[in-house]
């Protein structure tokens, strides 16, 4: 029997056949919680799954054709489409040629692709005369539909393909580096603090972005505007600023910042979260947190982190037999660049394309609601491109409610469901993840070490041991609840969480491999972190005292 996936037949799960054919399907705990809404699943998320296969084909990965993916009860499950041994043999020589440029000069591949993406986004806006968020309201229905189609079938596709060819190369390189690490040093890279030191200290766009926010905060202090930021309601801060000359000056600078960098929402991989340019008060909350810091937290640690990295580099290379040193050094550099890319690409890929999608889709939501096709503008998130195409031009003549209703109630049911971690035979998970190192983006198999008698086992993502009060955060709209000095427990984190790293004491995440966002940011900010615990958000409750051991990669619940 096929399980419904909001009418997206390519995601429907065949309970009998799929586990048999693929061995096991693993829940994507990193991206899948809380459950996505149908519109995003069919557009943005689709192009990522497409990207994985495109990347596998372009790089001619020997062991996999990319992932296959299903949605079960609203949660994403993934597995590898493994090649046959004959295919692997035939693909291998081509793979060697195609992966080579990434090993030789990772940035040399990424920089032009990045520039091309930025150009594409810019052209999409400027060719339609759009600058401000509200400018999209000026487009006719035809123009808006044309923008939508460009976005769905050209721009988003381009982003997905670029994104995944880079990601797959980065993960193959990192995967090899981690394998070599294990055979040379006899320790899993994921639980080796030295490995993490090696990967630290590279400033991604995400960090630069947060630094600009901090500078805006410091500017507000300089201008004597601190008082205006003292109110609890972020929207009121902006109102208060309008009252003074200095306040207006600051607001203008903030607006300029948003026009450049505000194309992002706090939840990636969704269209139902406001972007910063659309709702400037979102950024105010972050500026509040940062403005009292006399030194930008990343910069405070930067010197130490860089020094430790350089020491680790020297130390590691000295331990490598001389015959392998040149190759290992090259691999280490490529792996570092790949790790840095992993953190950097969010700005150019996920965030930018997500914001553009939200821009167009919420505008359709507004028009459909106004024209009586749906009851609430937010209902647009239950529609698929075909239905938007159906109703865009005969605006007001199509009733979209039947589509919305059945998917909305299904989504509501799914919100109550705790996803099963896998379907099929879990003993095959290791083999499947090994056949495709990129699966570790979204899946996690904890390294259990009984002798440590811990409550949770994960990866030693950022060194240090801390004890403190846990705060379980299931989605970014709960970020405001975080109190300074707490330990955040989350399913995963994305770039939008960067700002809380400057106030928290520790981090525990359910998902996240060595290149995932929480891991990298925790290292940058010197916050002890255990990632990939799988069940952290299930086992830990807000308010409990926990000990996070970022050296060993384990978590202890102290008051059970």
């Amino acid at each position: 029997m096929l399980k419904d996936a909001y009418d997206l037949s390519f995601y429907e799960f065949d309970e009998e056949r799929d586990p048999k054919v693929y061995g096991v399907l693993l829940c994507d705990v990193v991206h899948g919680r809380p459950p996505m809404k149908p519109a995003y699943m069919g557009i943005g998320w689709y192009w990522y799954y497409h990207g994985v296969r495109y990347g596998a084909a372009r790089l001619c990965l020997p062991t996999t054709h990319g992932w296959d993916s299903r949605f079960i009860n609203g949660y994403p499950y993934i597995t590898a489409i493994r090649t046959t041994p004959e295919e692997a043999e035939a693909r291998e020589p081509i793979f060697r040629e195609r992966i080579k440029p990434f090993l030789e000069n990772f940035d040399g591949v990424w920089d032009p692709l990045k520039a091309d993406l930025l150009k594409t986004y810019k052209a999409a806006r400027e060719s339609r005369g759009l600058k401000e968020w509200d400018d999209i309201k000026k487009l006719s229905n035809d123009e808006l539909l044309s923008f939508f189609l460009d976005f769905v079938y050209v721009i988003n596709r381009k982003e997905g393909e670029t994104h995944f060819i880079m990601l797959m190369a980065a993960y193959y390189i990192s995967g090899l580096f981690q394998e070599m690490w294990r055979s040379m040093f006899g320790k899993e890279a994921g639980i080796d603090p030295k490995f993490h030191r090696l990967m630290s200290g590279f400033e991604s766009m995400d960090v630069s972005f947060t630094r600009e926010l901090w500078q805006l905060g410091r500017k507000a202090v300089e201008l004597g505007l601190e008082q205006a930021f003292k109110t609890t309601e972020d929207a009121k801060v902006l109102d208060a600023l309008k009252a003074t000359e200095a306040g207006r000056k600051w607001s203008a600078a903030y607006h300029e910042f948003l026009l450049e960098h505000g194309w992002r929402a706090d939840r990636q991989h969704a269209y139902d979260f406001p972007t910063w340019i659309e709702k400037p008060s979102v950024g105010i909350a972050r500026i509040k947190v940062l403005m009292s810091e006399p030194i930008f937290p990343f910069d405070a640690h930067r010197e130490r982190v860089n020094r430790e990295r350089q020491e680790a580099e020297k130390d590691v290379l000295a331990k490598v037999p001389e015959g392998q040193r040149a190759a290992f050094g090259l691999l280490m550099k490529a792996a570092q660049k790949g790790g840095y890319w992993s953190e950097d690409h969010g700005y150019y890929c996920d965030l930018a394309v997500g914001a553009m999608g939200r821009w167009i889709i919420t505008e359709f939501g507004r028009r459909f609601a106004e024209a009586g096709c749906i009851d609430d503008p937010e209902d647009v998130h239950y529609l698929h491109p075909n239905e938007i195409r159906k109703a865009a031009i005969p605006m007001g003549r199509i009733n979209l409610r039947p589509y919305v209703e059945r998917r909305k109630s299904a989504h509501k049911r799914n919100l109550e469901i705790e996803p099963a971690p896998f379907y099929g035979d879990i003993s095959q998970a290791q083999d499947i993840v090994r056949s495709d190192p990129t699966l570790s983006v979204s899946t996690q198999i904890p390294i259990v070490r009984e002798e440590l008698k811990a409550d949770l086992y994960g990866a030693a993502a950022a060194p240090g041991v801390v004890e403190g009060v846990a705060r379980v955060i299931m989605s970014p709209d709960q970020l405001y609840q975080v109190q300074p000095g707490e330990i955040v427990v989350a399913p995963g984190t994305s770039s939008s969480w960067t700002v809380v790293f400057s106030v928290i004491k520790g981090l525990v995440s359910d998902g996240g491999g060595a290149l995932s966002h929480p891991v990298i940011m925790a290292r940058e900010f010197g916050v002890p972190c255990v990632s990939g615990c799988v069940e952290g958000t299930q086992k830990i409750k807000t308010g409990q005292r926990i000990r996070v051991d970022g050296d060993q990669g384990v978590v202890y619940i102290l008051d059970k």
Partner: protein
Amino acid sequence: MAEKWLYWLEDLGRGQNDLVGKKCANLGEMAKVGLPVPHGFALSLDAYNLFMNLAGAYDEMRSCIERPETSLESITGINELSHSLRRIVESKPMPAEMAATILLHYQQLCDRCCALDVAVSTRSAGAASHPGQYETHLNVKGDADLLDKIKKVWSSSFNPTSLSFRKQKGLPLESDPIGVAVLKMVNARSAGIIFTADPNTGDIGRMIIEANWGLGESVVGGESMPDTYVVDKKTFEVVERRLGTKLKCVLPMEQGVVEQETSKDKSCSFCLSDEELAEIAKVGIRLETHFGQPQDVEWAIDSDLSFPHNVILLQTRNEVMAKKKDPVDQLLDLMVTRFVKA
């Protein structure tokens, strides 16, 4: 056919590659100049031929090769032929006169070592050096075991790789005479390799010593990451010292050997003392000087003997310097080995 087909090592020398195979000739050369090699004797290439003829193996193998169902066009075909040929060789009893000669020398070896049924290794010695192609048997004990293992070394000249190599080169399939070295086993505490010049960089000013606990097979096989020392050949100073993971080591059992996981305290400590290192390095330089070019040497530390007599040499040969491979290609090879062939 030569009358004599068995020689004590010390009666052999460098010029006798074609007689007894390179390994035995070099062992003989080392013994002759007073370098520490184990007691032992060598069966010449003629011994191989003599056995095959007396036992009637050649005729039987030729008819097996000529059978219409024999095919060397597929890997399965080659494997099947290899299996059949090896079975023919190994099923033949050692001809009585050969057995008598071999066992007489074995008895004398036992007497020299003051032991009953002394443990030996039987090692192949090809006329041209083909490392790893033929078999070595370790910790062989007693008359029956010895005769059996000598036949096994001979029959290993019919392994699939050698068969397809001979087919490619148009050489006769049914014969590739090799010598056999029968050496007293070293009760190795640690063992390994010396490269008297750095094979990776071609630097002749320094030598590389790799070592693991137990017998040298774990180092030669390249599966366990050994300890590595880089020694300056002028000053005998250890300029680099890297602790290997040494996850596994090879140890003797009652008969034969076993590969097992190294205990934690052993895998975390170096397996050679500084004075042993210096002695090994000195021996390496003597070898290089004597043979006139960089050597690739197998050695072992015998725990039954005291320093400096405990450094025993098991083999030397001219070192093959690696052509420098581009690091990117090295990585691509690794990537393919790890992700595709794993």
